[in-house]
């Protein structure tokens, strides 16, 4: 048989294929992002203040003991995924009650909303009146000789709180702004030996509930997802991007309203030794 030359394969494009693969992996690789629940720590108070009397209906307590058993508002629960439903119920039960219905419910033990926090409703006239009143008070404190700076600041913070409500109501575009009772909060009580897994789960569930509430509200009001507001607020524009700054401010205002409607007040109780 005649000897034949084996034709050489052109391997020049192999390098291209390899580069293509390399670039594919570079692009598709996702890094493990660090995710966490940010919770503020309350400031340390040196002066002992008498405990404030809080009504039971304003507390949504979630308890986890050292055997990792869970209890929400006095009910033992098996599945930790149910916590968010309890938190939702806590926020929603009295949400649609009018002021007169609310007064009736607060006196009636058999009312389904008796054991849940009430909402205060403010109209624009009332808010404007309060702004005027608190401003006068703050100015008076400021004029008082020897008033402490922190004391004056406290009075001005009251004014800014009412101004915040005014902005919120303007954006809300309804006659009244419902605001959850200022004492209503979610309380987390754990013991020293409670596993971190359960502690994190409780935080996760609370976030889930608040996310759902705010998401629904933002869809109702502006037709956008709450997640979009959060991502928009994640990248703050620089000083000179004027149009972007304006949009950013709009999202900030939206967030402010959602926080007035559904505040994430969480108290973590330090376990006893």
């Amino acid at each position: 048989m005649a000897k034949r030359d084996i034709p050489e394969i052109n391997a020049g494009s192999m390098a291209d294929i390899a580069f293509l693969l390399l670039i594919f992996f570079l692009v598709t690789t996702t890094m493990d992002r660090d995710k966490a629940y940010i919770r503020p720590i309350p400031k340390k108070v040196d002066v002992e203040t008498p405990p404030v009397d809080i009504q039971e209906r304003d507390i949504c307590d979630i308890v986890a003991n050292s055997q990792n058993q869970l209890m929400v508002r006095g009910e033992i629960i098996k599945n930790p995924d149910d916590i968010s439903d309890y938190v939702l119920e806590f926020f929603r039960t009295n949400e649609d009650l009018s002021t007169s219905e609310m007064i009736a419910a607060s006196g009636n033990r058999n009312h389904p909303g008796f054991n849940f926090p009430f909402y205060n409703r403010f109209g624009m006239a009332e808010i404007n009146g309060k702004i005027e009143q608190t401003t006068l008070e703050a100015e008076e404190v400021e004029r008082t000789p020897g008033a402490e700076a922190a004391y004056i600041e406290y009075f001005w913070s009251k004014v800014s709180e009412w101004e915040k409500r005014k902005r919120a109501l303007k954006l809300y575009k309804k006659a009244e702004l419902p605001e959850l009772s200022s004492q209503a909060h979610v309380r987390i009580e754990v013991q020293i030996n409670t596993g971190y897994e359960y502690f994190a789960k409780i935080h996760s569930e609370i976030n889930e509930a608040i996310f759902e509430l705010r998401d629904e509200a933002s869809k109702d009001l502006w037709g956008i997802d709450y997640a979009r507001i959060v991502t928009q607020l994640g990248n703050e524009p620089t000083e000179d991007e004027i149009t972007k700054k304006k949009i950013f401010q709009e999202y900030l205002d939206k967030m402010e309203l959602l926080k007035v409607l559904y505040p994430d007040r969480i108290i973590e109780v330090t376990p006893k030794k």
Partner: protein
Amino acid sequence: MSKFKKGEKKGAPGVNTSSLPDIVFMLLFFFMVATTTKDADPTVEVTQPTGVLAEDMTPFKQRSEIDFLYLGVPRNKARAESFNMGYALFLDNVAQPSPGDLYNVNAVRRWKLDKFEAKPERMKKPIKEVITCVKADETAPTGIIFDIRKELQDIEALKLAYAVKDNGNY
């Protein structure tokens, strides 16, 4: 005279490039295997619990407004016994006893303040706003986290973050 005759002048021989892809592949595999995205390899074992809708820490990381601390069981089992409940803190490459231990109570406080002092002036944010992110093992007792919380409260570093594993986007 000479037995070696110089041949006629030839053009430069073509370089065989068929092994170039092998080199590229070798590089590719090397990077694929060697890439890790952790900035420190903690000497404590941490398996994070899962959670949903947690906040992304990356922006804070880029602005260096966040300090990470790990809480878990030391990989070195013999050492584990010397720590409070068998759990140790891992602060910047050093395993430390947790705040509840009898000795070295101020480890967290000192670490946080040192880190704060070490930052250049123009990058400094008030300590109140610097986040401390606790990456704790899912079995870690929450009591230790509250001990850390108290330490941070004492130095007025008032932002604490509880890390979880979250695969969703938000």
